[in-house]
């Protein structure tokens, strides 16, 4: 059986000047949480939007293969894609206030999703919405269905977004920084909820984050992105125990870990900033910030396998 989501050699350009995604490959298996991690501008959100075919006008998407449950997405019509989106493939975004419509009640937005994709009555759709609100830990779901988004706290709105994404029993859930706008205590609650739903419903999840703490706690597999490329991909435990790419190693050193840091001892850091890359760029995009770079890094970089499920993009040997 083919994987749930296959992305092979995805390229996204904006106006022919900026290459946002450069040959990124990501596979999400059924029932697996795959984290895309990287810093701002590395192309992780663009990758997700490209999968959903939600890129802004002027963006060009191409891929060697882009398939959902074995079905090719690149050749799919707009209506074909609209049939999948919100249905078998659902997405939640960072800022629930901007992704919920402020002019409609929670209930009408939730039931619309179901009525659009499935043959059902308003009554049955409302029941399902109430069930799902309860499922995501919202007390008094009946009350919440009649409320508007501005009447809810940030954590509640994100729960509503999650419940709405689940309305049509998706097989794939793409979550783009779902907890970045939330307080730490609420973040932990929402992540716990997402991890539980993923496990109980057997969802495939593509979770996008910049936070390595989140990756460590919820991902089965991790792909590290840098300047539009996946520079390293491995099962989570292996990536943290045995990071290979100098960028991955640098990122792990930057994270302050409570109880393991000494005051006034400098944190590890990566000098410089992420470069902006145009078409025709060759070699390793990290070379200007890398301690191990030499002249060969300006040429095409081989992808090495560190183990069966672990590969990285660097001239250094495994």
């Amino acid at each position, binding site marked *: 059986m083919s994987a749930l989501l296959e992305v092979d050699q995805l390229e996204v350009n904006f106006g022919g000047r900026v290459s946002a995604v450069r040959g990124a490959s990501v596979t999400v298996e059924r029932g697996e949480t795959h984290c895309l991690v990287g*810093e*701002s501008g590395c192309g992780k959100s663009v990758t997700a939007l490209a999968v959903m075919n939600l890129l802004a006008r002027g963006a060009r998407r191409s891929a060697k293969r882009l398939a959902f449950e074995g079905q090719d997405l690149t050749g799919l019509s707009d209506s074909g894609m609209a049939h999948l989106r919100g249905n078998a493939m659902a997405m939640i975004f960072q800022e629930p206030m901007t992704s919920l419509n402020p002019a409609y009640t929670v209930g009408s937005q939730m039931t619309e999703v179901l009525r659009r994709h499935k043959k059902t009555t308003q009554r049955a759709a409302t029941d399902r919405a109430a069930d799902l609100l309860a499922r995501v*830990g*919202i*007390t008094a779901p009946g009350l919440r269905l009649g409320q508007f988004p501005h009447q809810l*706290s940030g*954590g*509640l709105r994100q729960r509503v977004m999650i419940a709405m994404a689940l309305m049509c029993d998706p097989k794939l859930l793409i979550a783009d920084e779902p907890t970045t706008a939330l*307080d*730490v*205590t*609420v*973040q*932990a*609650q929402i*992540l*716990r909820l997402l*991890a539980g739903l993923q496990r109980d419903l057997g969802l495939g999840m593509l979770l996008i984050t*910049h*936070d*390595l*703490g*989140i*990756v*460590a*706690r*919820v991902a089965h597999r991790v792909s590290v992105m840098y300047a539009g490329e996946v520079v390293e991909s491995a099962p*989570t*435990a292996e990536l*943290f*125990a045995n990071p290979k790419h100098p960028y991955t190693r*640098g*990122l*792990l*050193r*930057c*994270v*302050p*870990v*409570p*109880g393991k*840091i000494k*005051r*006034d001892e*400098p*944190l*590890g*850091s*990566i*000098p410089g*900033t*992420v470069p902006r890359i145009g078409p025709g760029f060759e070699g390793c995009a990290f070379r200007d910030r890398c301690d191990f770079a030499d002249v060969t890094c300006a040429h095409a970089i081989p992808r090495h396998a560190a183990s069966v499920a672990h590969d990285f993009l660097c001239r250094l040997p495994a």
Partner: protein
Amino acid sequence: MNTAIEVKAVRRTFRVKGGLFGADRHVVAVDDISFAVPPGGVLGVVGESGCGKSTLARLILGLLPPTAGDIAVEGQRVIDMDRRARARLIQPVFQDPFASLNPLARVRDIVAMPLKAQGNIAGSEIAKRVDEMLARVGLSAEMGRRLPTELSGGQRQRVAIARALVLRPRIVVCDEPTSALDVSVQAQILNLLAELRRDLGLTYLFISHNLAVVEHVASEVAVMYLGRFVERAPTETLFRRPEHPYTKALLASVLTPEPGLGVPDVGLGDTLPDPANIPPGCRFHPRCPIAEPRCSIETPPLKPRPAGGVECLLV
């Protein structure tokens, strides 16, 4: 003089219009807080959004007058001070370097502004001190000629730090200085702030929602909840032996990059704190996992601890 910042029984409320027919409401942002920071110390203030930590920062900077109580920096009352004198003593670094820098001014001019505003510093002296300061925060002279929009987030935060330090203040109030930055850049800026504090003998009030960051920079930590410090302790004590259930929940919420541990259950429920409607008794009791009936009636007194204290009936 043995305190850099001294805050005595400070309270700040805001009136919020109730709308067409509603009554006005009073939001209590800072509720009777007292503390002192010694010279060279770093007090980390942690708490969730809406807990009043940014209001506290603005009070100490003299940008807001307190509703009640007194604030002194280096022994002088903040609200009595002349703006120029205050600027020479205490300076802010804010969260968002995209919003806090004038997009139409060159970096050099942004950093020179506090010196020019003093009105009595010669042009040649200003140029010299701007050059020194840019170099000190790791920006090249060429960067000085650019506009903020041509800089990355980390570079902009360096500009904000240069502007804060160019008058050689004694105290810097950092309000979420790295929250808008990527993790690799956050580390650069934290290292820079630590280095500057050591070299220039600065005192910091360091506000953050990120406990790991606070642990790295602070000598003592205050945990703020609905306008009060519910626990205050030397950094190591707070992280090793937290007492207040809210402190414990905050610490439990930190997701360290350790695979296999899963996501912790912090057990705080969904009722978020509302500063316009502070609960009676212990203000944390509606979310507290160990609350008892008396917690909703009795106000917890401050129980002193070595170099700090905790406000909970149950510890």
